């Protein structure tokens, strides 16, 4: 060949991340209606739990500080729900959709790292979902009157970002499964959606699961693999300190943060390894290019 190509891999992959994040970020501006469907409507589901706790703690003799904490739990859970839904339906399944749209083969033919592709998807997804999360938090403060204690903002931010990275790392790992199994992996997302709402304690203190007996501890142990579980528990500890004398906390904040950091590394490494392996399998079986399998 007459020309030789040399591209700085770091520059190439950073450009790829920005390039892939762009449609998600710009898409948010192009179709404002999604704010109503993705940010405003989910508030109704959260409101239902808020009214349950509100009604319960209005009883004579009930402590209003508990009401604030419980409603705050729900608001934080609603915030994390947005990210979990995004990871499941827009992150994990995205490679399947890309194949259906005819984009996957163009992505796989490009010289960028596959992690850059997934990283761009994750970054764009986080940006979009943050809008829903912010709407939920703002509604928590102004509509439901929740008071957040932000005494340790650095730690709150650290836990929040560690949770997001671990969560999206998990999504990247799940995305590789879609690469091989396509539409059949759909069942997996459906299977993970509602049970995780329960076992991650999105709308109640996670330790309450212990109340179901011996199985409760096993469920708690399993749920700890989901970054949302640990992240939510740590954030709640930081924002609502001293709730019920700490009886409902899972582990200490420091330990939960450390586990989240480990999960970040584990999920990202697993995503890279599984994506490489499953891409090879998909190329062998001809699944990168054919649609409607």
């Amino acid at each position, binding site marked *: 060949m*007459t020309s030789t190509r040399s*591209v700085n891999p770091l520059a190439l992959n950073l*450009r790829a991340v920005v390039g892939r994040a*762009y449609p998600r970020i710009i898409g948010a501006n192009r179709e404002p209606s999604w704010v109503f469907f993705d940010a405003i409507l989910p508030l109704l589901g959260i409101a239902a739990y808020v009214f349950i706790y509100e009604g319960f703690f209005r009883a004579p003799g009930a402590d209003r500080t508990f009401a604030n904490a419980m409603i705050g739990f729900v608001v934080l859970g609603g915030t994390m729900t947005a990210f979990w839904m995004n990871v499941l339906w827009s992150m994990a399944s995205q490679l399947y959709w890309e194949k259906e749209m005819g984009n996957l083969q*163009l992505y796989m033919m*490009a010289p960028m790292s596959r992690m850059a592709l997934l990283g761009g998807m994750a970054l764009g997804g986080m940006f979009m979902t943050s809008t829903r999360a912010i709407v939920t938090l703002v509604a928590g403060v102004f509509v439901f009157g929740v008071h957040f204690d932000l005494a340790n903002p650095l730690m709150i931010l650290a836990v929040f970002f560690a949770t997001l990275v671990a969560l999206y790392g998990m999504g990247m790992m799940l995305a590789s499964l879609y690469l091989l199994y396509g539409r059949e992996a759909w069942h997996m997302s459906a299977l993970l959606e509602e049970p995780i709402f329960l076992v991650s304690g999105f709308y109640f203190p996670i330790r309450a699961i212990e109340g179901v007996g011996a199985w409760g501890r096993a469920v708690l142990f399993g749920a700890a693999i989901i970054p949302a579980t640990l992240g939510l528990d740590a954030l709640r500890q930081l924002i609502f300190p001293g709730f019920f004398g700490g009886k409902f906390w899972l582990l200490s904040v420091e330990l939960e943060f450390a586990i989240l950091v480990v999960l970040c590394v584990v999920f990202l490494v697993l995503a890279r390894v599984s994506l490489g392996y499953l891409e090879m399998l998909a190329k062998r079986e*001809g699944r*990168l290019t054919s649609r409607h*399998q």
Partner: protein
Amino acid sequence: MDLAVETQQLTRVFTQRRKIFRRRRNGENGESEGPVTALDHVDLQIRDGELFGLLGPNGAGKTTLIKILATLLLPTSGIAKVAGHDVTKDPLPIRLKINMVSGGESSGYGLLTTRENVWMFSQFYGVSSKTAKARIDKLLHTFGLWEKRNAKVRNLSSGQRQKMNMIRGFVTDPDILFLDEPTLGLDVNASRVIRDYVKSWVKTTAGKTVLLTTHYMMEADELCDRLAIIDHGKILAVDTPENLKRRLKKETTFRLEVDPLKDTSRFKTIPGVKNFSLKSDGGASLEKLTFILEDEAAVSDIVSEVVRQGSKIHHLQKTEPTLEDVFISMVGRSLE
């Protein structure tokens, strides 16, 4: 001589996929679907700077070959090299030098504008934004899409979308471009714009190679320096269009337009008939027959057979061989 593409005994067999949630699906008659050989020991050499065509009917193996060369599919056996690198062992340096455009593809996102969409794909190749935008603007003018630069992709017509796909293919300035039926379903003008640009790109830019698959004979004849005729995964011939047609010079091509025939099987048994094809336009009243004759005297037997079946001959012409005639001569049927 530098080779842009080289394959040795390249074979690709598709076997039935395993389903994790579904039972194994059987064919219409209940039998299990067997393996399909899409490429069968293909040996091919494409020179650097060449515009090379792959001519074959649907299912011949053209797209499979391109997908292997584009590092999207692994061969079952054999070797495929692009720009000197093995597609199986060393795909990254290949990916830096190639791009691919398929006919009728729907790449990108409908929410993005034409310009944004092409820019996004350029980023996956590490092209700086400044360079990418300059190239995009130039190509938008060349392909007559400048007016649609800020239109959302979902609002483009299929012809405009295909022009955008072509721009996506050229924006990374590849050394080797795979074009898989790039003018499929396009109108005459859009096809002309694409063909003209591809031709001038290869001829005026040093070291650029194009592998074009098509089943438009005229397109292959007009564009390609050399052609391979492929059918059932096998390469039947490789040569320049002129040389391929010259092979038929010692044979004679006759075209007939006749009323619908009851039975065409007898034509094959007439002495001197090498091959023939029949084209019928569905409900049309006339059928078009093309005969490749080793012995010109056979034409009288053909005419007799048509008359014997009670059919009327509306048109009879002896013609210079075309690529289509070459194809009929080798494969025994028409491309379309």
